[in-house]
């Protein structure tokens, strides 16, 4: 059965929760026929990665690429259909709850994971 990974999700941090790393705009997610794309605005960060249930929560498996002077970081990750929990890891040690996701759930450790639903 063909794996149905057909979503492009643009996720951008809003300025409010990031504090020191700053962020500017919030984009509406859009759908395209490609793997899921994560985008975040963090001008002060030296590195950003996506970690979640799809990569065994590894903070190094999916590093994001800086896309320009506006401080945006982006990563395109093929995901299987289903629900995936995730967070952003800034500078290898700070775990951030995504500001935009399909859902938010308590991780049981005092933090909140974002959830993407891929169809």
């Amino acid at each position: 059965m063909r794996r149905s990974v057909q979503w492009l999700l643009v996720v951008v941090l809003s300025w409010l929760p990031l504090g020191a790393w700053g962020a500017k705009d919030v984009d509406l997610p859009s759908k395209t026929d490609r793997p899921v794309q994560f985008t975040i605005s963090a001008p002060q960060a030296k590195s950003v990665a996506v970690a979640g249930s799809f990569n065994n929560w590894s903070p190094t498996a999916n590093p994001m690429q800086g896309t320009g002077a506006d401080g945006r970081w982006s990563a395109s990750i093929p995901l299987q259909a289903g629900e995936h929990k995730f967070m952003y890891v800034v500078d290898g040690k700070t775990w951030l709850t995504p500001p935009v996701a399909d859902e938010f759930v308590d991780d049981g450790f005092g933090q909140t994971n974002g959830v993407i639903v891929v169809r």
Partner: protein
Amino acid sequence: MLSIAILTLALFGISDGVATAALSEQEIAAVTKLGEAQGRSPDDMKRLIAQAQQAEARGLPSEPLLDKIREGLAKGVDSGRIEQRLSSMTSNMEKADALLKEAEIPGKGQTSPQDRGRTLGVLAEALGRGVTPDEVRSLHRSIGEGNSDAKPETLAYSAKGLAVMKEGGLPPDESKAVMSAASRHGNNAAGLLDLARELKSRGQEFRDKPSRLHDIRTAVERGERLDKLRSDPHPATPRSERFDQRLDRDQRPDQKKPDLARPEKPLKPERLEQPARPDLPARPDKPERLEQPARPDKPARPDLPARPDKPVRPDKPEHPPRIIQSH
């Protein structure tokens, strides 16, 4: 032929009764290595992995526990706290297992061990997110009304949808009614969760006006398409375009309407003879109209001043003659 038969029997023997894929040595080694790389003691890692193995030995899915171990290690959580979290998850899975066994009819709607493990995981998550066992039982009763094909998966996802709505502060009874109505109308897991998330995102609207949620429930009970119930995108929480898609109804089970025989109408009691109406009192005469006083004459209009004469238009000048040039 004999070897094929033995192999087949062996495969059936292995697969029967196993909830999910067993924890492999490879997975255990990978998690142990992850912990050691973070400076966790071997004893800590043994205890964490032992919890996952013990759950598996009791027929519970181990993958969610392993995933939680990886998550906790990656986030730098204390091993003791990870153990507590694993204990809580295992307890919820045991409750979910018991609830599913209550709901299952032997020999009917049996799913594969893998599907059952997944269903159990979803129900356990719902319990972990605030749904009570009694609420699950109540959902099971209301989903099962007139729906003999109700599956355990439907119950699990309805319970998860209920958890989502409760997290949004929506009233539990009304939320339960919405989920059970949506389930009875054959909506699949994706449809149930999409509906729950949509309603959760509109939580303030329903807290301000509780009757609105009741309207949604009525619409769902009428069988209206769930995608029609969505509102305009909430400015604070951008929604993806998936809500514009028609919900996939290919997975809907065949709907069989229950055979409801209409009960006989009760006989109306005979009309008793009405007592005679008393005569209405006579209308009093209208008072005579008083003579209106005469209207005074309108004052005469003053004469308007005479219009001045229009100025005379000057004569148009004559056009000069056309000069035709030839080259």
